[in-house]
C-alpha cells in the first residue's frame, strides 16, 4: 500500500514540478539556515566541564563601590584584586581553590636555531589540575609545597611537548621561559575545554588550547604582568608593589565546592569577608559579593555572541515563513485535486487512505527538502568561518546529531505543514465531487 501511495504522491509531485521544487527549495533553505545557526549556538553555549560545572564556583567581591557597580547593573567587577585573591587563597575555605591569571612568557627552545614562541599560558595554584580534571600524558601537577616554595616548576601541554621534546616523556627536564629554567612536573594530555570556562573575561571564551601552567606565587615573584585585562578605578601608584596593593582587578578565582551546603557556607564566608573589609575601613559600602557556578559564570560573561542568537532567531523566522508557504501551496494543491479525491473516495478509499496518501506525499517533499537542507548546511558550515571568530568557527562541525536533526526537522516540519491541507482533502464529499461541477 505504501508503495502505491508513494507512486501516487510522486505522480502528483511531477504534475506540478515548479511548485514541488519551490516547496523543496524553501524547506531546504529554511532548515539549513536554522540548523547552521543552531550549530553555532550549540558550540558557543556548550558546557565545557559537564561533570563539574555545578561544583566549580567563581566569586566576585565589590571592591570599587556601588557607583561603579551600578554601571554594570549592580554586578561587582568580574575579576579580583591581588589583595582579595590572596586573602581567599589564604583563608582556604574550599576543599580546593586557585587564583589564576593569563601570562605571556616566551618559551626559548634549547636549540639556538629555533625561534622563541609564546603559547597560551596561565599562572595558577596546584589545585588547578585536580579541580579542572586536567588529564596528564606524563607526570602530573606540582604540589602545594611547590606553591609554598614559589618553585620554578611548570606543566606543559601536549603540543608544546611535541614541539620541544618530540613527544617524549619530558617530566623532570627543564624548559626555558624568558631566560629562566623551570622543571617540568607533568605533560597534559589533549585538553581544550571550549568555552574556556575559567577565563572568559580575557579570552571572550574561545581560544587555543592552554599549553603552559606555572605557579602563581612564582609568577608574582618574577613580576610577570597579566596578559589579560587590568581594570583600575584609580591611580595605581608606581611600581609592582604599589600595583599589587592597588584596587586594580585582574585575577580570576575558582573554588571547588562539591555540595550545595558547602556553596552556601562559602557564600557566607564571602559575605563575612566583605563585611570585615568594611569594618577595617577598606570598603565604604555594604558587602556586595557573588558566587557563580560555571554555567552562570559563562552566561553572565555573555560568552555566546549576540550574533549567534540573532542569526538563530532570524533563521527560525525564515523557517516559519517557509512553513506557512508550504501550507498554502499544499492547501491549494489539495483543493484543486478535489475531483480526484472524490473519485478515489467513491471507489472505496477511506478517509484514512486519503490521509496516508497526502502525508506520504508531504513526507517525500520533506525528505527531499531535508536532503537539500543537508547540502546547504554543509555549505553553511564553511560560511560560519566568514561570520565568526576562527576560534569559534573551528568548534562548529556537522556531526551525526546535526545530520539527523536536519532531516528530522525538514520532514516533521513538512508533515506539520501538510496536516491542515490533508484534513481539508479528507473532508471532500465524494458525492459532491462526482456531480459535474
Amino acid at each position, binding site marked *: 500500500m505504501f508503495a502505491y501511495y508513494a507512486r501516487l504522491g510522486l505522480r502528483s509531485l511531477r504534475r506540478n514540478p515548479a511548485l514541488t521544487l519551490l516547496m523543496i527549495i524553501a524547506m531546504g533553505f529554511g532548515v539549513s539556515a536554522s540548523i547552521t545557526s543552531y550549530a553555532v549556538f550549540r558550540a558557543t553555549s556548550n558546557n565545557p566541564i559537564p561533570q563539574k560545572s555545578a561544583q566549580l564556583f567563581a566569586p566576585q567581591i565589590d571592591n570599587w563601590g556601588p557607583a561603579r557597580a551600578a554601571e554594570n547593573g549592580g554586578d561587582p567587577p568580574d575579576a579580583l584584586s591581588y589583595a582579595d585573591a590572596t586573602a581567599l587563597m589564604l583563608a582556604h575555605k574550599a576543599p580546593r581553590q586557585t587564583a589564576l591569571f593569563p601570562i605571556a612568557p616566551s618559551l626559548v627552545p634549547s636549540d639556538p636555531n629555533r625561534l*622563541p614562541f609564546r603559547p597560551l599560558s596561565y599562572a595558577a595554584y596546584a589545585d588547578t589540575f585536580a579541580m579542572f580534571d586536567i588529564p596528564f600524558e606524563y607526570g602530573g601537577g606540582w604540589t602545594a609545597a611547590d606553591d609554598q616554595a614559589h618553585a620554578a616548576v611548570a606543566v606543559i601541554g601536549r603540543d608544546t611537548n611535541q614541539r620541544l621534546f618530540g613527544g617524549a616523556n619530558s617530566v623532570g627536564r627543564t624548559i626555558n621561559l624568558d631566560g629562566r629554567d623551570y622543571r617540568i612536573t607533568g605533560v597534559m594530555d589533549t585538553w581544550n575545554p571550549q568555552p574556556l570556562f575559567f577565563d572568559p573575561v580575557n579570552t571572550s571564551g574561545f581560544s587555543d588550547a592552554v599549553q603552559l601552567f606555572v605557579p602563581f606565587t612564582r609568577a608574582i615573584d618574577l613580576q610577570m604582568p597579566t596578559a589579560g585585562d587590568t581594570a583600575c578605578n*584609580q591611580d595605581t601608584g608606581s611600581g609592582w608593589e604599589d600595583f599589587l596593593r592597588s584596587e586594580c582587578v585582574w585575577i580570576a578565582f575558582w573554588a571547588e565546592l562539591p555540595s550545595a551546603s558547602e556553596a552556601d557556607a562559602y557564600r557566607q564566608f564571602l559575605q563575612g569577608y566583605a563585611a570585615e573589609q568594611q569594618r577595617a575601613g577598606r570598603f565604604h559600602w555594604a558587602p556586595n559579593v557573588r558566587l557563580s557556578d560555571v554555567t552562570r559564570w559563562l552566561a553572565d560573561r555573555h560568552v555566546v555572541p549576540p550574533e549567534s542568537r540573532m542569526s538563530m532567531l*532570524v533563521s527560525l523566522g525564515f523557517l516559519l515563513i517557509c512553513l506557512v508557504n508550504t501550507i498554502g501551496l499544499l492547501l491549494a494543491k489539495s483543493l484543486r485535486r478535489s475531483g480526484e479525491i472524490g473519485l478515489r473516495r467513491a471507489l472505496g478509499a477511506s478517509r484514512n487512505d486519503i490521509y496516508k496518501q497526502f502525508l506520504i506525499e508531504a513526507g517525500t517533499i520533506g525528505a527531499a527538502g531535508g536532503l537539500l537542507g543537508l547540502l546547504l548546511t554543509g555549505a553553511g558550515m564553511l560560511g560560519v568561518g566568514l561570520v565568526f571568530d576562527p576560534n569559534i568557527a573551528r568548534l562548529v562541525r556537522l556531526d551525526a546529531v546535526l545530520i539527523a536533526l536536519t532531516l528530522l526537522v525538514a520532514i516533521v516540519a513538512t508533515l506539520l505543514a501538510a496536516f491542515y491541507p490533508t484534513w481539508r482533502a479528507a473532508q471532500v464529499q465524494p458525492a459532491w465531487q462526482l456531480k459535474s461541477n
Partner: protein
Amino acid sequence: MTWQTVTLQIEPILAALRKHKAGTILITLQIALTLAVVCNALFIIKQRVDRISRPSGVEESGLLAIENSWVGASNDAVPALIRTDLAAIRQLPGVRDATLSDSFPLRVGGRVTGVRLDPATDKAITRAAQYSTDDHALATLGARLLEGRNFRSDEVATADSKTFVPTPAVIVTKALADRLYPGGSILGKSIYLIKNGTPSTVIGVVEQLQVPWPGSWTDAFSDYVVLTPIQLTDERNVYLVRAQPGQLEAISKSVPQALFRTNRMRVIPDRRGVRTFAEVRAQAYKTDIGIATFMGAVSAVLLIVTAAGIVGLTSFWVGQRRKQIGVRRALGATQQSILHYFLLENFLISAGGVIVGALLAVGLNQWMMGAFEMKRLSPLYVLLGMLLLLLLGQGAVLAPAMRASRVSPVEATRTS
C-alpha cells in the same frame, strides 16, 4: 481603472476571498512575517554598515602593523632595543616612516583611560583610548594635525606600564577636544588621565583617530583618543610601518626579516603577528560584515520564496476559476478588467499582510532591543519594507493575472 470600478470590484473580490479563507489567511500571514523579518534584517544590515563605514582616521593603504614582544629583556634594556629596531626599519628600501605604539585603531586590545578636567572628581568626564607612542606616530598613521604641534623627539620618554605616569604633553582627537571644551579651543589646556594625577597639557589636536575596539561597548567614546609620547617597555608593542607607494607587499616580508636579523630574542606571533591595515580592518569587522551578509542572503531568499508562493497560489486560483473568468469574459468583461481584478485582489491581500507585518516588525524590533544591542527600528524602514512587499506582490501576481486575462470566453461553455 476609475475609482468607481475599483470599488465595484472590491465586493466580488472579498466574496471570493471569503471562499478561500484559509488560503487568504496563509498568504496574508506569509507576507506579514516576511515583512517583519526583512524589515529587521535590513535594519540590522544598516546598523552594521554604519559601524563598518566609520572612519579610522588612518591613511589605510600602505600601512603595516607588526606585533612584537621581547624575550628575557629587562625593562632597562628595552629602550635601546626599540631604537635599534626603528633605525633598522627606517633604513629599509620601500619604508617611508615607522613608529612604535602600544596599540592603534581597530587593533582590538589596548588601554582605556578616564579623562578629567578637575583631577579631584570621582567620575571622569569620559573614557578615551590611550596610545603610548612617539613623535613619528602622526606621520606614520597619516593622521592630520588640525591645531598645535606634533611631539618633539626630546619629549618621548620610556617607562614600564606599572610605573607609568601621565606625560606632560599630550595630543588629543578633535572629537575628544570638542567633548571637553565644546566650542572652545583645548590647546594649552590641562587634562588629567589619572584621578589626583599630574596634569597633561594638550599641545595638538588631530582630525580623527578611532579607538582600538570595533565593538559597541566603545560607542560612547569611539573617536576619543589621547596620544602620549611614551614608549612602554614591558608590554607587547606594535611597530607601525608606512610603506612607499606600491611597496607594502615587499616590506611586509622585509621588515620582519630585518627585525629578526637585528635581534632573534623576540616573538612575532604566527597568527596576526604581521598584518596590513586592510587585514586589520577585515578582521576587526569580520562579524559585522558576516552578519550583514547573512541577513542580506536571508532577506533575498525570503523575498524570492514569498514571491514564488504568491505566483503559485494565484496560479491555482486562476486555474480553479477558469470557468468563472470565462463567464465574465462572455458577459463582456474586457481582458484588462480581468487583469485588474487579480491585481486588485493581490493588492488587498498584500495590504492586509503589510499592515499586520508592520505591527509584527515593530514588535520583533522591540523584543530584539531588549535581547540584543539593537536600536529602535526607524519607521522609514517599515514604510520601505511595506512598499517593497506591495510591489513584490503586484510583480508576482502579474504573470498568473495575465494568464487569467487571456482565458477565452469559450471556457464558459466547457464543463471542467
